[in-house]
């Protein structure tokens, strides 16, 4: 089972890297770009567990390790 986890800053937290990318895109003339938020993607291969267990495991490791809940949020999807 393959899962993709996306970790990004909460909306309330300033993301200076995203801002820099946004400014660069504006400089290049992409005026339609309204905002950019940068994040991290983790692709995790799971084996030996049922889908139901995976659905409990993924939020657990995301909260505990992959994201810092004070500044970051996470989202995930099963790939197959």
């Amino acid at each position, binding site marked *: 089972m393959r899962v993709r986890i996306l970790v990004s800053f909460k909306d309330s937290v*300033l993301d200076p*890297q995203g801002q*820099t990318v946004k400014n660069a895109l504006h400089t290049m003339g992409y005026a339609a770009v309204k905002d950019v938020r940068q994040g991290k993607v983790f692709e995790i291969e799971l084996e030996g567990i049922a889908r139901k267990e995976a659905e409990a495991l993924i939020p657990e490791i995301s909260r505990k390790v*992959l994201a810092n809940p004070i500044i970051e949020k996470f989202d995930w999807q099963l790939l197959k």
Partner: protein
Amino acid sequence: MRFGVVQFPGSNCDFDTFHVLKDVMAQDTVMLWHKDHDLQGADCVVLPGGFSYGDYLRSGAIARFSPLMQEVKAFARKGGHVLGICNGFQILLELGLLPGAMLRNKNLKFLCRHVHIRLENDRTPFTRAGRRGQVLRIPIAHFDGNYYAPPRTLAEVERNRRVVFRYCEPDGTLTEDANVNGSLASIAGIVNEGGNVLGLMPHPERASEALLGSEDGRVVFDSLIRSLGARRPRNPVPASREKVGHDR
């Protein structure tokens, strides 16, 4: 009294810190290994600067799970003194011993330079040798030193005078320019609720000898020695043998 300096893979200020405590401050000092469960009777644990575990996930995020850090957590919860410098501060935030988190510096640059910090609270065990309002000149060297805490947490920290150091101009005034990394409220260092855990981004161990251009950092070590020297030996906290994280 005895100081213990924790070594993680990627620590790079461990020997500087050890040298200052042992040779400059003439204290009994031992190195503590991150995979051990033994604080070796240390009265004060120092988490030095560096890039523990490469800082690959987030600064301090993986060091937090090391076996020794579980002992440090128990030690701190019982009132033991813990000093986190730079990466050590980041680890204390990740571990939850101090509130808040670090974001990348506002200008997205690694900052390695001397800064001025104002001592905000001289009633902590880490600052009692100094005085409130005193300005110290101490170097910083970090990428993620932009302190952030949710508004409610920040208000609580301010209300209880837990901000110990703020970035400032040489004359002690707070300005946006002096707040080099963009920290909320110019925060450079905070203590926990009990006052026994301090985290700060500047490196006092790099400013403890005249030869290196500043001795201002000695305030922190002098204070600790004064605070702990008078204390009677503590009962050692028993090591917890529970396996955690990547403990083997």
